[in-house]
Structure formats: structure tokens, C-alpha cells
């Protein structure tokens, strides 16, 4: 199976990766003959970033669920794995999705570059390159050179580009390179208006394309001509005004312009990238808390992050012939943007373009219905309904096991949080009425009714589940739960709500 290595850089990288995980869990797949295994590599110096921690936990749960239930069940059907699982080397990494940036924790940038050991001319050059002010963890104003990097690069890509250059010499990069095959692809997620993402994207890209010059790694040829896609997220959210913070909304556009100008020569201008997706939103909505990183940086999920995750699906749908590369140069570089049908402040499925709606409406609705049933009705149905009593049984012991109680429940709880956060955000994405009856679950979709059609409630779901499961063979209770609900929710949403694949 070919692999897609995803470098998720910075807070936005983690959040887009989280959205991708939700989409993959719901069964969204690329329309392609090729199946890809996803290998996420999160790059963020800010280890206490809440968005990063939430994404890591989510990926861990996803991995456990798909390992236990298998990959042919609709939900959770794309394999996600950690880099360490691919390698048999003695320097095996821990089973984490996060890239371990060395010598960042608790150190000032000046210590990282060894400023005190530099001779006078180099020290003067460093002073020029890294002039200006920022803040430290204690909210005190400090010189840029004195920034402590364990809360990230605080919107300073000039620092980030130096620190992230260590990636090319890391064990992770060696493992990535030695496992990279001709059919594999790379995707880089970053934002352009902050520090980590803006610096990380061109740095990672350059390190991959310059693989031939890296003596530390194997698989150089494949890497140099790798099929590389990227989404660069332009400003898309509003942020509280705080004159003490180094993060200012007014700087977003200036930083974006500066980075785009750099990309013009070093990313797009030199055809380094095969497929580049731009996404932005100038809607001035609910401002985020102005947190440079010292309070954990936990931002609500946003529609733009989900749309960015769709770029990855689109990239996987792009045929190999459109992603040809020679000597590190894309032969037919592709540039794409994302749009919606209606400029709505609260996006519903009908506001999306047809392709996007077809891609996500059915699958997300299925997972929403699955979660709704499990959280609101499963305890009434367990050991009572025929589908639950059929072998392998979904019984009380099963729901007390870690798979259900921890992995699945926690994942679905995060899924609900993700939907609620997107719904509460402005611009919002609120295609579901999560607390309503099943019939009112999807905004703008009414249930088809007629003389002989029954209403859709939990009892009718039980009927459908028992009918669907009758006579079927499942390898385990966990596989049965996932597969049975995927098939049944698809049937209900098709026949009763008129949703299409």
C-alpha cells in the first residue's frame, strides 16, 4: 500500500490534521483506485499546545479503533500509522505522531544558535537578522534572541526557519527517507501568517527536494522526485486585540504578504511543489483569545480547517500523471483554491459546492447518527435487540472494555466537540442539530414520508440494524459494531433523508 506522509506544522497543522482524522473516521475517502496509508508527522516546538495534544490523543484512538476493528468497515477505514511502525532500525522512535524537536525546551533562541560563541561579525549579523522584540512565557517583553522556544516561535518565522532546519538531520527524517517509496506521496500542512508553519513549510519542502545533497539519508532519489502537495492556510480567523501580545491581527496580512513573496521564489517560482492549495477567509467573525502559546493555545475548530483537510483528499485523487516530477521540479504544478456556493455566516451542506457536499454530507451524517445512537440509545438496546444478541454479541462486557469505553467513546466525544466548535465559531459550520430528534438531525433535510414509510427513530434504527445484521458474519464484536452501523446509517440516510454518495 502506498503511503501519504503528512507533515503537520504548528497549531494550524495539528488542527487541520484533526479535521482530516474526523473525515477519515467518518469514511470520507479519495475517489481513487489507490489506497493510501497515512503517516502523520506533527512538527510543533510548542509541546504543551492543547491543539497538538488533542490531535495526538485523537490519532491514538483512531489507530486503536482501526487496528481492532479492521479497515473494511466504512468508518475508520483508512490506515493511520506512526513513523516508528514503519521502521525496524535500532534507533526506533517512540510510537508518537509528534516530531521530537531537539534542544528547544526551556532554551532561548540565542542559546540554540550559540550566540555567545560567535565571533564579532557573525554576532553582529545575528543581531541584524533577529532584531526586534517578542514576549516570553511570563508575558515579559524580551529581545527576539531571548525568546524561549518551548511556546513556539510566537509568530517569528525567521527563528522557526533556523530551528526547523534540524529536521533534515533527525532520526525521524532518516526513517521517513529510508521508508519512502516511489508511489508514496508527501503533504505539508501549514499556516502562512504565524511563525512555525510559515517557516516550516518551505524548510521541509527544501529538505525533501534537496535530499540528494543529504549524506545522512537513504532513498534520496525517490524523495527528490516525490509527489508533494501542500495546503498553505492564509488568515482565516479573527483574534482579540491585546497590545501586550506579539500576535496582532493587523500583522497577519503583512506576514502573509512577506511569506508569499518568499514562496514566489522558493516554492512556487521554482516549481518545487506539485500541488499547492490556498485557503483563506476574510470573514471577520468571533475573535479567538489572544494566546501566543503560554496558556496552551486551544482554538475552536473552524470550517477552514476542515476544508483544508479536504485538500488532502483532493491531492490523493490527483492522478500520478499530473504529479510528475523531474530532478526535483514539478512538471505540471497545480494551484488550487477552495470556494463555497453561498457566502453564509453559518454554513450548511446546501451552501457547499456539489463536489464538497457529495464528499462529506453522507459520511459525516453517518458518523453523527452513529454517535447519537451510541450515546443516547445503546444502553437501552444492549442485550435486548436482536442485532446486539447476534454473535458476536455486543453486550455489557463489550461496552465495559477499553475499546468501547475509552477509544471509541473518547473519539466520538471529540468528534461531537469538533462539530460543536465549528458550529459555534464564526464563520460557523453547522449542518447538524446534534441535540434534536433523528428526523431533524440534518439541517435542511426532511425525512421522506408517505403512507407506508415509518418515521425514523431509535426503534426504527434497531429494526434496520437487526435486519442488516441478520445472517452476516463478523470477525469480532468491535468489527461488527463499526461495520453494522456504517451499513445501516448509510441505508437510513439514503432511503429516508435522500443523501447520496
Amino acid at each position, binding site marked *: 500500500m502506498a503511503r501519504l506522509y503528512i507533515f503537520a506544522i504548528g497549531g494550524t497543522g495539528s488542527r487541520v490534521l484533526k479535521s482530516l482524522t474526523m473525515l477519515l473516521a467518518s469514511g470520507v475517502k479519495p475517489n481513487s483506485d489507490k489506497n493510501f496509508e497515512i503517516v502523520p508527522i506533527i512538527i510543533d516546538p510548542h509541546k504543551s499546545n492543547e491543539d497538538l495534544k488533542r490531535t495526538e490523543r485523537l490519532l491514538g484512538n483512531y489507530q486503536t479503533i482501526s487496528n481492532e476493528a479492521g479497515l473494511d468497515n466504512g468508518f475508520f477505514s483508512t490506515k493511520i500509522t506512526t513513523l516508528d511502525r514503519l521502521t525496524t532500525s535500532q534507533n526506533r522512535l517512540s510510537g508518537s505522531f509528534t516530531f521530537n524537536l531537539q534542544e528547544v525546551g526551556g532554551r532561548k533562541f540565542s542559546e540554540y544558535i550559540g550566540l555567545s560563541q560567535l565571533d564579532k561579525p557573525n554576532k553582529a549579523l545575528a543581531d541584524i537578522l533577529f532584531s526586534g522584540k517578542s514576549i516570553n512565557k511570563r508575558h515579559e517583553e524580551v529581545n527576539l534572541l531571548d525568546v524561549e522556544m518551548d511556546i513556539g516561535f510566537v509568530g517569528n518565522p525567521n527563528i522557526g526557519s533556523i530551528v526547523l532546519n534540524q529536521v533534515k538531520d533527525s532520526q525521524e527524517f532518516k526513517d521517513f527517507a529510508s521508508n519512502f517509496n516511489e508511489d508514496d506521496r508527501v503533504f505539508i500542512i501549514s499556516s502562512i501568517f504565524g511563525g512555525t508553519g510559515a517557516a516550516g513549510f518551505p524548510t521541509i519542502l527544501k529538505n525533501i527536494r534537496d535530499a540528494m545533497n543529504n549524506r545522512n539519508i537513504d532513498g534520496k532519489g525517490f524523495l527528490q522526485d516525490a509527489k508533494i502537495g501542500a495546503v498553505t492556510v492564509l488568515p482565516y480567523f479573527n483574534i482579540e486585540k491585546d497590545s501586550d501580545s506579539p500576535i496582532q491581527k493587523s500583522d497577519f496580512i503583512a506576514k502573509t504578504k512577506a511569506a508569499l513573496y518568499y514562496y514566489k521564489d522558493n516554492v512556487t517560482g521554482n516549481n518545487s511543489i506539485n500541488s499547492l492549495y490556498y485557503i483563506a477567509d476574510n470573514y471577520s467573525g468571533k475573535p479567538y483569545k489572544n494566546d501566543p502559546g503560554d496558556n496552551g493555545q486551544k482554538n475552536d475548530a473552524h470550517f477552514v480547517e476542515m476544508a483544508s483537510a479536504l485538500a488532502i483528499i483532493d491531492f490523493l485523487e490527483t492522478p500520478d500523471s499530473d504529479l510528475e516530477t523531474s530532478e526535483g521540479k514539478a512538471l505540471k504544478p497545480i494551484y488550487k483554491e477552495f470556494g463555497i456556493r453561498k457566502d453564509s455566516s453559518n454554513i450548511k451542506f446546501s451552501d457547499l459546492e456539489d463536489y464538497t457536499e457529495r464528499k462529506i454530507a453522507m459520511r459525516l451524517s453517518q458518523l453523527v447518527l452513529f454517535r447519537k445512537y451510541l450515546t443516547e440509545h445503546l444502553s437501552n438496546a444492549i442485550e*435486548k435487540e*436482536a442485532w446486539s444478541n447476534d454473535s458476536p454479541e455486543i453486550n455489557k462486557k463489550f461496552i465495559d472494555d477499553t475499546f468501547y469505553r475509552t477509544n471509541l467513546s473518547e473519539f466520538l466525544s471529540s468528534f461531537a466537540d469538533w462539530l460543536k466548535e465549528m458550529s459555534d465559531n464564526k464563520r460557523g459550520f453547522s449542518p447538524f442539530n446534534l441535540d434534536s430528534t433523528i428526523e431533524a438531525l440534518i439541517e435542511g433535510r426532511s425525512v421522506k414520508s408517505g403512507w407506508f414509510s415509518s418515521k425514523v427513530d431509535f426503534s426504527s434504527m434497531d429494526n434496520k440494524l*437487526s435486519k442488516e445484521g441478520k445472517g452476516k458474519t463478523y470477525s469480532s464484536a468491535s468489527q461488527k459494531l463499526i461495520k453494522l452501523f456504517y451499513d445501516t446509517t448509510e441505508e437510513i440516510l439514503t432511503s429516508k433523508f435522500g443523501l447520496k454518495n
Partner: protein
Amino acid sequence: MEEFFASLYEWFGLNPLYSTDMGDHLRGWMCIDQSGYFGTNWYIMIGWSMIAITAFFYALQYHIIDDSRFNKKHHWWVMALIIIVLNFLLAFLIPFNTVQSGDFCSELNLTVADCIGFGLSNAVWSFVLFLLITSFKYPRHLGTNTRFTTFWKP
């Protein structure tokens, strides 16, 4: 079949819930011109009716309604109660009407208590039959939502 049903209702002679006169009447005892079992054999009539009623209500619950809203053990007991009541009424009312109208052999001494006893016998056997049909895996498992419904679960 006559003897089969008679044995059932008379509890194989062990402890019938009604008198032997009622047993004779149900076998069709007549004494107008001559004595003998020439009349209607109520054991066969009521026996088959009991089977038909029980089978119908079994099919109604397990194959016609066959719904998750009606598949718990208390639903089984509701259905069992309906079957018991109907079969009791059937077996009680037929001899009771005969007793009330006096349209039976004058040599026989039939009482309302006999009618109740026969009604109870029929009710008990209908319950046993329903219990048996729904205890075996088949034909119960030909249903969809009720295929695990028995008197003790779910």
C-alpha cells in the same frame, strides 16, 4: 386426535379440573334415542382452535409485527396473556352456553365449575404450547427483531 386432546385436557386422568360428565359431554355423549358418543366432539374442535389461536398470535408477534418496539420479555407475557384469556374464554363459553341452554344429555350433571375447569385446562395448554413454540430456536429465528424474544429474555 380425539384421545390425544382428551388426554391432555383430562391431564392423563391424573387430576382433571372438571367432572367425568363434562368429559363425556366434550367427547360428544348423546342420549336422545340411544346413548353413545354421537354428538359434536368438542375436544377436537376446541383443541385445534387452541392450536390455531396460539399459532396465530405467535405469528403475529414474531413474524407480522416483528418490531423492536414489541420484542421484550414483557411483550411476550402480554401476548401470552392474550392467548390464555382467549383460550380460556373459548373453552369456557362453549360448554357454559350449553349448560345455560340445557342442550345436553339429561343423564349428565354439568356445572359452571366444570366449564371453568375446562376453560382453565385449555388456557394452561395454550400457554404451554406458546412457551414451547417460542423456546426453540426455530421457527423463532426466522423473524428479525423478535428472534431472541422468549418468556425470560430480553
